[in-house]
């Protein structure tokens, strides 16, 4: 490892602009003539729109345009779609209701966009938005997915009877039922995974600019995947053909899944720009973000886990109801199915699994992938159940897990996934050691003397990342492929630009990706620029989510580097009159192995571009493109241990230690990887202790600001003890598994296992807020 190569803790190149206030986010963009938009949104969770009167608003100061869904439809703008087809177990396709970017006849959740107002200033746009008069006929709303399935519940979409979108299954129902029947012990639980709001710190924003002379649109937007945004807006929403639509995702202030999807606002801003003749910028305020960003989780499940007399799992049965909200967001259908139920084997040898999943419309914000996406929900079920089973069986939770660990690879689970590598025992050992698991009883006794309840909880998670072999996801219903692209441009002076289809919104790609290039050619990372986030600059790519930018994005770069290296070696061999096989590239020099003959890297690059003396028949230039389609998912895994101390008088839970031992495969920059784990754990602890999106029965979101939705703050969290013990991933050239989501996946069950251990109860609802914990302590007495 060089000082800037693979494995080095290099400080981030991109930091300079962020720490000096020179970052460029969408809201920082100014285009000549730019005006401001505000949306009129539904105050009702469910209502018919009887009349929209925009006259008063149109006459307000500064107003340029007030546009409705009717006009949008008349211009042929299409409905929003879900891009992953799931079929119910009876073979019928999922029942997708129409989602118009601006609601026309009916609104289905509080925040549903109805009218866009464009005005000289943001203030004027907002004032005018308040002057739009809409007459509604209120309808009964339903927010709870279980209630929505009941006969007679309010019907959200005519297309989906009883609000059921699909009734899907995976695995072997018969064999699993038989295993439960024959079991020596069965652990049964009902488990709720609470609804969360992703809350990237930068609110969503869009700036649409229509250039009349060129008949061309530019959209600056807070996107994790600008090319997908362009594809979808072009192919499905009829905004413009792809060659006439440029999507730019500049600096983006966090995503966590919520900025994968194409929302109504960016479509409407583009359309409104053409309609009004001015560039139109919209920036969400925080309450708009709470109301309209895709939410995460919101599952209710029952589980049955069967054990034989040796405490080996013999079967696992799951029944889940997943709330998808008022509309099917772009990837909403794959989250509670293929990103969820396929992970229900966890780290364990389970001979048979069956999961049934019903997805449901309700009058709430759309639900889609949020950090982990399906995998946290699966892990929460498994790891809560394992801990409960250990308590019921009277064995150590660590040993029950170890007894059931998968130890040989590859391992085919009963639910599609084929695990390629891992060492779950190593992570368990690392975590138990780092947390002094064995010494817990003493600490518990000491805490009891102080009047505190101390508990310890563990979670052994696995996730499937990289997302994923295109043919495989295609066969499962995905509307897109999930490869990644890269172009490596060596300039004539030897500096390098890497154009990647991945998108960095906090992950540090500008550094990590440059380290990969440094490792290969010895070029300093300052001489390597990473270009991303602009469909005019970068070839088609699939973007960043699912912890894929290392395993898939960097694999594409590695492939392109292979091609560049091969050509550079041919040129060098020709110039140095040596055999191509003897050429090595090291520390910025191109050498003939075993001799003192060498050329500086830049001279090889220059030779490629002067083209004065190239091997016969070789094209000039040194620039290569590669598309990498992964051969398998990757399978990061690990063991998390949480120790809590609860004050029984106040119900306050303090996390006294949190240990994470992960297996991420090979690591490019450990500092960045640790940062990803810290952030993921904080979100997981947030879910377990603090966060919850709450709607009242009428569909009003009660937690729609930071005054009401409890974000984890510095004082809520400890410093974390993180470590890795890595087994390289065999399916990609760099051996990377991915690390972006692990923390959020592994931590919630560890926290809740610790709290239930401390109180001596089976379950507690997330978020385990002080009042919930206090009540649980009283109830347990």
């Amino acid at each position, binding site marked *: 490892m060089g000082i800037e190569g693979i494995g080095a803790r290099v400080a981030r190149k991109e930091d300079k602009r962020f*720490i000096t206030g020179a970052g460029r986010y969408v809201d920082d963009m100014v285009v000549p003539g730019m005006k401001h938009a505000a949306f009129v949104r539904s105050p009702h969770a469910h209502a018919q729109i009887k009349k929209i009167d925009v006259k008063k608003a149109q006459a307000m100061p500064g107003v340029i345009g007030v546009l409705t869904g009717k006009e949008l439809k008349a211009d042929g703008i299409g409905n929003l779609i879900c891009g992953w087809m799931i079929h119910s177990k009876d073979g019928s396709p999922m029942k997708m209701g129409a989602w118009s970017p601006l609601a026309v006849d009916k609104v289905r959740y509080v925040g549903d966009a109805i009218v866009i107002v464009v005005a000289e200033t943001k203030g004027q746009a907002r004032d005018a938005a308040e002057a739009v008069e809409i007459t509604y006929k209120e309808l009964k709303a339903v927010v709870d997915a279980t209630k929505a399935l009941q006969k007679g519940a309010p019907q959200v979409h005519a297309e989906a009877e009883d609000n059921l979108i699909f009734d899907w299954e995976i695995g072997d129902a018969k064999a699993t039922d038989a295993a439960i029947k024959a079991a020596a012990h069965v652990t049964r639980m009902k488990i709720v995974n609470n609804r969360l709001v992703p809350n990237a710190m930068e609110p969503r924003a869009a700036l649409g600019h229509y250039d009349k002379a060129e008949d061309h649109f530019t959209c600056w937007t807070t996107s994790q995947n600008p090319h997908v945004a362009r594809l979808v807006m072009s192919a499905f929403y009829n905004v413009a053909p792809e060659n006439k639509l440029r999507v730019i995702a500049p600096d983006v202030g966090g995503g966590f899944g919520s900025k994968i999807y194409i929302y109504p606002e960016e479509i409407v801003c583009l359309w409104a720009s053409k309609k009004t003749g001015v560039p139109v910028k919209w920036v969400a305020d925080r309450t708009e973000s709470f109301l309209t960003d895709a939410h995460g989780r919101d599952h209710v499940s029952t589980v049955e886990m069967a054990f034989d007399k040796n405490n080996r799992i013999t079967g696992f049965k799951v029944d889940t109801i997943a709330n998808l909200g008022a509309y099917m967001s772009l990837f909403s259908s794959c989250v509670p199915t293929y990103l969820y139920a396929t992970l229900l084997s966890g780290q364990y040898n389970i001979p048979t699994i069956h999961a049934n999943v019903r997805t449901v419309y309700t009058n709430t914000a759309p639900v889609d992938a949020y950090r982990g996406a399906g995998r946290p929900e699966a892990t929460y079920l498994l790891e809560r159940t394992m801990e409960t089973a250990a308590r019921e069986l009277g064995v150590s939770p660590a040993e029950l897990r170890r007894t059931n660990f998968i130890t040989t690879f590859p391992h085919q689970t009963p639910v599609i996934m084929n695990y390629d590598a891992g060492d779950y025992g190593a992570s368990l050992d690392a975590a138990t050691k780092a947390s002094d698991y064995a010494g817990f009883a003493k600490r518990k006794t000491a805490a009891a003397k102080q009047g505190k309840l101390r508990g310890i909880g563990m979670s052994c998670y696995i996730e499937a990342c990289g997302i994923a072999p295109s043919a495989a996801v295609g066969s499962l219903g995905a509307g897109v492929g999930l490869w990644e692209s890269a172009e490596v441009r060596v300039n004539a002076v030897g500096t390098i630009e890497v154009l990647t289809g991945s998108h960095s919104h906090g992950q540090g790609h500008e550094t990590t990706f440059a380290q990969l290039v440094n490792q290969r050619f010895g070029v300093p990372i300052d001489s390597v620029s990473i270009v991303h986030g602009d469909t005019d600059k970068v070839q088609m790519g699939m973007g960043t989510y699912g912890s894929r930018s290392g395993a898939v994005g960097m694999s594409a770069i590695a492939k392109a580097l292979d091609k560049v290296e091969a050509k550079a070696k041919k040129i060098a061999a020709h110039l140095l009159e040596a055999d191509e096989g003897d050429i090595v590239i090291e520390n910025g020099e191109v050498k003939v192995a075993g001799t003192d003959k060498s050329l500086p890297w830049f001279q090889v690059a220059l030779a490629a571009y002067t083209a004065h003396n190239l091997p016969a028949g070789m094209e000039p230039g040194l620039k290569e493109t590669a598309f990498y389609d992964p051969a398998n998912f990757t399978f990061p895994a690990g063991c998390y241990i949480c120790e809590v101390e609860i004050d029984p008088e106040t119900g306050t839970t303090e996390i006294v230690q949190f240990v994470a031992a992960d297996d991420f495969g090979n690591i490019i920059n450990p*500092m960045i990887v640790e*940062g990803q784990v810290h952030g993921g754990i904080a979100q997981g602890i947030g879910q377990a202790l603090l966060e919850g999106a709450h709607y009242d029965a009428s569909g009003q979101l009660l937690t729609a600001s930071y005054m009401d939705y409890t974000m984890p703050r*510095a*004082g809520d969290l400890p410093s974390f003890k993180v470590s890795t013990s890595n087994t390289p991933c065999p399916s990609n050239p760099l051996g990377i598994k991915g690390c972006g989501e692990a923390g959020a996946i592994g931590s919630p069950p560890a926290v809740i296992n610790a709290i239930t251990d401390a109180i001596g109860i089976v379950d507690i609802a997330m978020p385990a807020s002080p009042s919930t914990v206090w009540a649980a302590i009283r109830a347990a007495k």
Partner: protein
Amino acid sequence: MSDVSFVVNGKRVSGAAEDRTLLVHFLRENLGLTGTHVGCDTSQCGACVVHVDGRAVKSCSMLAVQASGSTVVTIEGLANGADLHPVQAAFKEHHGLQCGFCTPGMIMTATDMIARHPEGLDEATVRTELEGNICRCTGYHNIVKAILAASKTMAKASKGKAKQAA
């Protein structure tokens, strides 16, 4: 509309602002100082923290006209030319930022925090004092580390200066 005039990052600036204009919007929209961010509507997130007359202030909780006559420092004015402020340098060295959106507010808060604690800082104090700044990326682990490190660096530097002066 009211006239607003103050010193921002060492330069006197003036302009007209609607009475309802918040300081943060004046900085961003009138002065083009977009390093100060808006992350919420309720003065909770702290992405907009600047220094007004030497104190950390959420610039969304102050009208532009209220700041008239004050001396304001934003994230853009913190470094000394090409030399990063020790807090900026520590955030970089300790990976105290990821997406960068909360970072300007974090750094301005941290600078103020360190100045108010010449006796030095410990982890518990830093965590308590970060109450008004939300970060969604880092889990605060490295932010806390960066602030503690910067506090030490600055203490050393001021001791050195004191010695020189003596």
